[in-house]
């Protein structure tokens, strides 16, 4: 038995510390059919609301649809960018749903995420078609709403735009990670109890996701700071800033 200990231990360590980690996307096929259908049913009303809102907005401003499409491309690119996570020695990727929630609102952000996820699932094997609903719920719905609400809450307490952006990025990332853990644990626990497996999944991804949340927070703050310095008028147009704050 001693002989198999070394390779098995090496394999376990290599799984967690060598390969790039893509913990935010639930891979194709992980969830059984019933859970895949459940999460899709949860996600679809949010996507439908996003579509309805986009139709309404684009009837007022003809450039709104191209803007949503381009923001989708931005979210797609950012969520494909590998970022080194020093504590884990791996690369992971930010979600960028917090910032899209802040800039275009959570409803639009859910739509943006759903489109980006579908393209990633079909052409990059990043996420999946069967796990599309679960990924929309964790990254789109929870990530966007948490980012948006956190930003609004911190701004109402008088926090600066960068500080509020940092907290929004941080919490949206961590909320996404926790929701992904819930989805994974519920999908793969089978007949076993939910909570022991859930806690192990949360612990397994802590080395990657905790620092990644901080990185996502810093990224969100950096983006907002740049927009504030270069184009405060855009932030006013998107109701991120009040007109008097942009001067």
């Amino acid at each position, binding site marked *: 038995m001693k002989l198999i*200990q070394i390779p098995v231990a090496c*394999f376990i360590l290599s*799984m*967690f510390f060598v390969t*790039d*980690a893509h913990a935010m996307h639930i*891979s194709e*096929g*992980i*969830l059984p*059919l019933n859970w895949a259908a459940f999460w899709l049913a949860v996600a679809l009303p949010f996507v439908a609301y996003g*579509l309805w809102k*986009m139709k309404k907005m*684009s*009837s007022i401003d*003809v*450039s709104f*649809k*191209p*803007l*949503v*499409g*381009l*923001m*989708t*491309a*931005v979210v797609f*690119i*950012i969520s494909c*960018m590998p970022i080194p996570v020093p504590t884990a020695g791996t690369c992971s990727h930010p979600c960028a749903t917090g*910032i899209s929630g802040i*800039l275009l609102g959570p409803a639009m952000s859910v*739509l943006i995420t759903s*489109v*980006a996820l*579908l*393209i990633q*699932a079909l052409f*990059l*094997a*990043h996420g*999946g*078609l*069967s796990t599309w609903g679960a990924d929309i719920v964790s990254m789109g719905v929870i990530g966007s709403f948490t980012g948006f609400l956190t930003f609004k809450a911190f701004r109402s307490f008088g926090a600066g735009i960068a500080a509020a952006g940092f907290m929004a990025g941080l919490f949206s990332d961590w909320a996404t990670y926790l929701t992904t853990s819930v989805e994974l644990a519920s999908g*793969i*626990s*089978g007949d*076993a109890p939910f909570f022991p*497996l859930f806690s192990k999944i949360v612990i*397994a991804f802590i080395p990657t996701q905790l620092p990644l949340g901080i*990185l996502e927070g*810093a*990224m*969100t*703050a*950096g*983006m907002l700071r*740049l927009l504030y310095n*270069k*184009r405060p008028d855009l932030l006013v147009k998107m109701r991120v800033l009040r007109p008097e704050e942009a001067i």
Partner: protein
Amino acid sequence: MEIFSEYIRKDHLLSQVDARIKLIVAFSVLMMVLSYKGLAFPIMVTLFCLLLCAKMKVPLRLFILRFSEPMFIAGVVLLLKVFFSGEEVLFSLDISGFRLSAHRDGLADGLLIAGRIIGSVSIMAVLGFSTHFTEFIAGLSWFRCPKGFIEIMMFAYRYIFVLLEDAMVIYGAQKNRLGYSNIKRGLNSFGTLAGSLTLKAFEHSQNTATAMVQRGYDGSMPMLKHKAFETAEIIGSVLLIAAMGFIWKI
């Protein structure tokens, strides 16, 4: 971005098949893989899909890149199930005083999920490697996917490559100026890069809207027209689904 399926050649037999047929077949087989309670069917589907990928001459590097993430996740799930789920002990490990037990029933469950992942990813790989984005979009519109959703997909797909090129230019400039020499500077640089992309997205969207309006854009885009289904393709797909269904059932 080199792993994007669009980059591989698409002059093989499967690329000639109607995207709607491919979508129906892929979706049906995917449902079978997800609902199957064993390992044999996903393995068979995986082998069949690998054979198709080989026939399509998918470059090995692209193939490995495409499967690396799902394989990694399948491995993590397998380990989680083996070591943290189940009751019947298979063997135990002693790692620096920490006792870890592998379970036979956990291994069976883990293999089932890993098989499901690899089977499903293989199906999606064949679909992605054999279908152009525009055909896929046309297929989705035939399935009554909301028009707004399809339009956003088209805009996004068009601008992914434009923005990616911008991102590479900015990243190269930042790197040359030691923008990623330590963690703090790296974070600042990444935030600036992401912010610049957002700014470019705004500028492009304004320019795109102006150009489109000048060409008669009224808020909705025309979709590809569908050709009629070919009888041979329908019969072929029905036979394939029936054969898969038969194997799935036994």
